[in-house]
């Protein structure tokens, strides 16, 4: 019999390094936590006495809110450090700040940063667990897990599915996390968008590259549209939003080329009328709000596992817990 996988990592920095078993462990743990948010009393004591710091050094509303609710539903003590109130503008390096947070005996540091690699850098420097809440264009592992979880919930499986990720792949941390997670779990991933935003180097990462959404959408089981940052036009990656939307925006007409059970996802926030037309974003094939709901369970799983993984670091084990065990 196969030994059940245990979580032994101090940090969650990305999906690239995780094994298939570790991904499934996270998803199973999220499944176990999913039901808590449906209770009238939405709280379990799994992280009681633990301190979680949310440090979002880049604007974020929904990911921060999702982590905050996740930490609170696990009964953790929560501290928020916002850019304006942090000392990062006072000449301290990010490592100084992290060492100070560590010195306050924090258990988990949830870190978002506009620079790729900062969570990895910080995780190496401090003993606290670090959860990457999005770093530059690198990874957004919890969003990647949300997408995996949502696909598994909606489709019942991931293996063998055809998933098209469309938009600004080059700058997207969600695209990278999705790519690693989906390919490890057996999906076929196509990265689609204009060549300026889907460089051919991505082919070497195990994805199919396409510049024609119409050709891909008819085959797809899942399409994940990415947010297009408005500054890409100014940076001349695209001629205009209109040109981008014409080829890569999903409206009702384009959606009709796809299978009837094609689902549409988006990490949010949606530029309505750019990546998705409003009727598609709000339509029956959209699972965008389910992604948001699932985000809390997934982030509860992430916080819980890294916290336990660190507590038992070296001895190495955090077995998944089932709802009955965490029932308050």
């Amino acid at each position, binding site marked *: 019999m196969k030994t059940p996988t245990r979580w032994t990592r101090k940090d969650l920095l990305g999906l*690239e390094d995780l094994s298939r078993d570790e991904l499934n462990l996270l998803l199973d743990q999220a499944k176990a936590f999913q039901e808590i948010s449906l209770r009238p009393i939405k709280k379990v004591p799994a992280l009681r006495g633990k301190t979680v710091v949310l440090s979002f050094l880049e604007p974020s509303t929904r990911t921060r809110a999702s982590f905050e609710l996740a930490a609170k539903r696990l009964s953790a003590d929560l501290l928020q450090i916002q850019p304006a109130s942090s000392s990062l503008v006072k000449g301290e*390096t*990010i*490592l100084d700040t992290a060492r100070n947070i560590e010195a306050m005996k924090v258990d988990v540091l949830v870190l978002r*940063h*506009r*620079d*790729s*690699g*900062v969570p*990895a*850098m910080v995780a190496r420097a401090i003993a606290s667990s670090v959860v990457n809440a999005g*770093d*530059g*264009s*690198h*990874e957004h592992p919890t969003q990647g897990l949300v997408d995996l979880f949502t696909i598994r919930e909606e489709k019942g499986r991931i293996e063998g599915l055809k998933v098209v990720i469309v938009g600004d792949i080059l700058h997207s*941390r969600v695209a*990278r996390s999705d790519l690693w997670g989906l390919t490890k779990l057996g999906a076929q991933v196509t990265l689609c968008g204009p060549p300026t935003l889907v*460089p051919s*180097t*991505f082919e*070497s*990462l195990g994805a199919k590259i396409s510049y024609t959404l119409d050709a891909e959408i008819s085959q797809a089981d899942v399409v994940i549209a990415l947010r297009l940052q408005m500054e890409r036009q100014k940076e001349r990656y695209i001629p205009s939003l209109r040109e981008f939307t014409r080829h890569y925006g999903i409206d009702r007409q384009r959606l009709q080329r796809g299978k009837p059970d094609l689902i549409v996802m988006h990490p949010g926030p949606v530029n309505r009328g750019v990546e998705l037309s409003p009727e598609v974003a709000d339509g029956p094939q959209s699972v965008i709000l389910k992604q948001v709901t699932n985000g809390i369970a997934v982030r509860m799983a992430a916080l819980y596992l890294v916290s336990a993984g660190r507590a038992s670091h070296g001895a190495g084990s955090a077995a998944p817990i089932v709802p009955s065990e965490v029932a308050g």
Partner: protein
Amino acid sequence: MKLLIKGGHLVDPSQGIDEPTDLLMEGGRVIALGKNLKTNGAHVIEAKGKVVAPGFIDLHVHLRTPGQEHKENLTTGSQAAIQGGFTTVCSMANTDPVVDTGTVVEFLKAANAKVGLVNLLPFAAVTVGLQGETLTEMGELKERGAAGFSDDGAPIMNAGVMRRALEYTKITQLPVVAHCEDTHLSANGVAHEGQAAARLGLAGIPSESETVMIARDLLLAEATGGRLHVAHVSTERGVELIRAAKARGVLVTAEATPHHLTLTDEAMGTYDARFKMNPPLRAERDVKALREGLRDGTIDAVATDHAPHSRAEKEAELSQAPFGVVGLETALGVLMTELVHQKHLKLSTLIAAMTLRPALVLGIDRGKLTVGSPADVTVFDPLREWTVDPSAFRSKGAHSPFAGWRLRSKVTDVVVSGRVVYRDEQFMNGEKR
């Protein structure tokens, strides 16, 4: 007093010497070479088992003086050079103020004389304030001590300005040292645009940001008959372009750094700014091409592009941390260990790339140990093993991409103009510093 280096294996590419030979010096000059030279009251350095070479020449060093002495000063920079076996270094002009007037050149020469360790050959800027617009007074700058011209770190984007600068080299007979980078292509990049950057989510610096400019500058050098030296070549195509230009007779020389000769962009996986430099670490095929270029002479010289920064500056996030790594104290060890001991390069070829050939780039009478030459000598133990520990560096910069590496070859003794400045891995006491 006479100085005799005895029993060593002398390598002097200028004379084709690569065998046990004694070296006798007096009055700051070489006065004799030969087997079993008589001691006759000379001060003797026993060099049995060691390699005796002309003092190394580094065409590309940032000494950060004047104005950025928190990163490096002439004392720490000179000591780092000597520890690495470099007796002559060319300092880059991107200081504060910029080296764009004779006054700053003379300041550097005078300040270096006070430190009294290395021969300092300052490069002056090609354009006033490194702005890429108005040429500096290159003729006067040469008269006042400039050894070459470079806007290193601030690529000259205006081809018209570059063309005129190359025209002027026909007066100065000094090279324009070009940092070849099209800044529109490199933009906000921090790492080589390749698989690693795609994976790591790092903004890319494509190979073409270098090759497009190498191609431009080669064509301009060809058209003008000017003297071009291409700094820190990092790409396979760049090597090919230079090789072809040399075959056509273009007056071009080129250098490569120890890090570009030994490391690839895979090192960026740590997100550690001690691997962040410009040009960036490239792909495996580029490393191979640079090594081939060094073997066949397309790459004339090894230069460190020693670029110290303070620890706080390099501890910043990758996008905020400045470009540049330190290299003076590890160059020989890295190149001996990775290239010579691994049989990728002959010892004499490496020594030529660190002595005679950079001297030819500059047109100076150093980098050789013929009778009558300045007595700049570096003695190293080719088998001595050591571990790179940046906290033991003389340089103020500790950001070495080779930290923790186990190297084989270490400089033991250094003679500058006949004066022993470094002996048995120690700086000489009582010498003016």
